[in-house]
């Protein structure tokens, strides 16, 4: 039992707990946050953590705890749109490539290769710059870059599923290509795709935050976590809480998603347990 201390149920339980906590905060943030995200308290500018402001305030006297809670909404909303949308696109493309084979497979996979050889950040930055920095831009830019990993996994899965007897049986009774893809192949890819997308949530949150940190993402005064880290950079020496608290929020939620993903991988792929 002691041997498995780090594995189960502690880390996975912790992971699920963190993810639920952040989802709860994202859903009910405005109801439970002590202040509004842009409420300025000029009597408490740059004040250190205290009972009144548990995570301190920024240079405009805004409560960091409240802004982090509102920020959960933005960061989680972006990834909850981006990951399923990109996942859907990638799974469809990968499955079609794997099942059809030949020229279509080659074409889709070469396009995937193209996307694989540009760093996510540079790709999303280029799209974001072209469309002008905003929340909508971040979502579009990320979907553009994010589908590639799903296409690869789905193609691999589709090829191995294709060789199964039940696909042969479906073909024998005259099922259409479309039915084979949507009814017999994609549902069987759910396990690996679920694991990948949970681990991917963390990577997506990190990218949203990095985009805003570099100034291409969500713009002030919206309380996005990466943008908050940037705004606090000049105060890092003396008022560390401005950058570190939103940074820790990013770390905690990404860690949570990664622990859940790691647990799911153990369940779906017992070989590497």
């Amino acid at each position, binding site marked *: 039992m002691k*041997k*498995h*201390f*780090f*594995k189960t149920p502690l*880390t996975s339980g912790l992971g699920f707990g963190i993810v639920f906590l952040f989802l709860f905060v994202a859903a009910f943030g405005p109801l439970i946050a002590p202040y509004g995200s842009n409420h300025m308290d000029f009597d408490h500018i740059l004040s250190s953590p205290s009972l009144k402001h548990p995570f301190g305030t920024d240079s405009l006297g805004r409560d960091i705890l409240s802004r982090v809670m509102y920020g959960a909404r933005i960061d989680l909303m972006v990834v909850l749109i981006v990951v399923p949308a990109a996942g859907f696109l990638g799974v469809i493309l990968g499955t079609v490539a794997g099942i059809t084979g030949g020229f279509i497979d080659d074409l889709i996979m*070469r*396009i995937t*290769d*193209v*996307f*694989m*050889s*540009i*760093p*996510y*950040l*540079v*790709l999303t*930055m*280029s*799209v*974001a*710059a*072209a*469309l*002008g920095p905003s929340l909508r831009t971040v979502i579009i830019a990320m979907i*553009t870059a994010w589908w590639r990993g799903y296409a690869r996994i789905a193609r691999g899965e589709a090829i191995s599923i294709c060789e199964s007897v039940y696909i042969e049986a479906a073909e024998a009774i005259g099922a259409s290509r479309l039915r084979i893809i949507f009814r017999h192949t994609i549902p069987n890819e759910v396990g690996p795709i679920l694991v990948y997308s949970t681990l991917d949530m*963390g*990577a997506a949150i*990190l990218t949203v*935050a*990095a985009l805003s*940190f*570099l*100034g*291409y993402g969500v713009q002030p005064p919206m309380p996005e976590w*990466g943008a908050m*880290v940037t705004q606090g*950079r000049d105060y*890092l*020496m003396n008022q*560390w809480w401005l*950058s*570190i608290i939103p*940074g820790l929020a*990013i*770390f905690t939620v*990404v*860690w949570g998603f*990664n*622990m859940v993903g*790691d647990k799911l991988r153990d369940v779906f792929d017992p*070989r*590497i347990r």
Partner: protein
Amino acid sequence: MLAYTARRLGEALLVILGVVIFVFVVSHLLPANPAKVWAGSKSSNEQVERIKEEYHLDEPVHKQLYFYLIQLGSGDLGLSPVTNNPVFKDLQRFAPATLELALISVFLGSIGGIYLGVISAVHKDSWVDQLSRVIALAGVSLPLFLLALLAQLLFSFSLNWLPFAGRIGQSVASPPNITGFYLLDSLISGQMGTFVSVLRHLALPSLLLSFSSLVRITRITRSSMVEVLSQDYVLTARSKGLKERMVIYRHALRNAISSSISLLGLTLVYTFGGTVVIEVVFGWPGMGRYAASAIHTLDFPALMGFVLVVSTVVAIVNLIVDLMYGVMDPRIKYA
């Protein structure tokens, strides 16, 4: 083997062309007016019109792409409208700094990752394995920019151990330009003072940048080593009475390492993405910072130059990796 290399080379060129076309089209579909940005806020209408004409900005995107590809075909990367330098010249100045940083990071990440992966697999489920798993999970969860800011705060400002920005000390002369890699150039020319200064400046950015590749390579090495160590030939090697070190490094690792090597190209892609963040935080005079400022100023010739260099380096590494498979794993034959 020759035919295989030629085919892979052709595929690599196609991928590079695809990258260039995609980024060009995406970045030129913009609603913003780059000519106005390039000409500056105090520019006259004539200046804006002249820039539009010079860069074919009035033409439809496919025509602009056509002009760009023709220009690229003659080996010309164009003129940056912001720095007013040929992009090739700018890249010549900035690329070595980024390549030095990225390659050292990938090297550190690979060596560390393979070592940690082997240790974790050999001591599977022990505290070492669990600790490395927890560190890996925490490692991939830390935002690179936060890690960089914290490291700067601790090692540069509080402890004053390492410089917080730049590639070389201000009072130290740059080494002669032989390879463009300061570390190598200072060593070749025997300037030990410069070498130490460069090393001190490289330490934080390269270690931080290597962290994500270290985590990825540890994970993949561990899982393939776990699989290989349960094979019959490992049992045979052990029952022959071979030393454990020999069994692990000569027999098991050689068969497990190909999956880690196959990850090199992708690791490099992630590292190049990371250089943008690291270079901005550490004021590193490289391509990543150049690209970041190019995107801010809508300097598309510069952005395209950066994308071209990155995709070419990644394609070359992927090609080398493919060819190395045959050396690492004699079962693979190139038809």
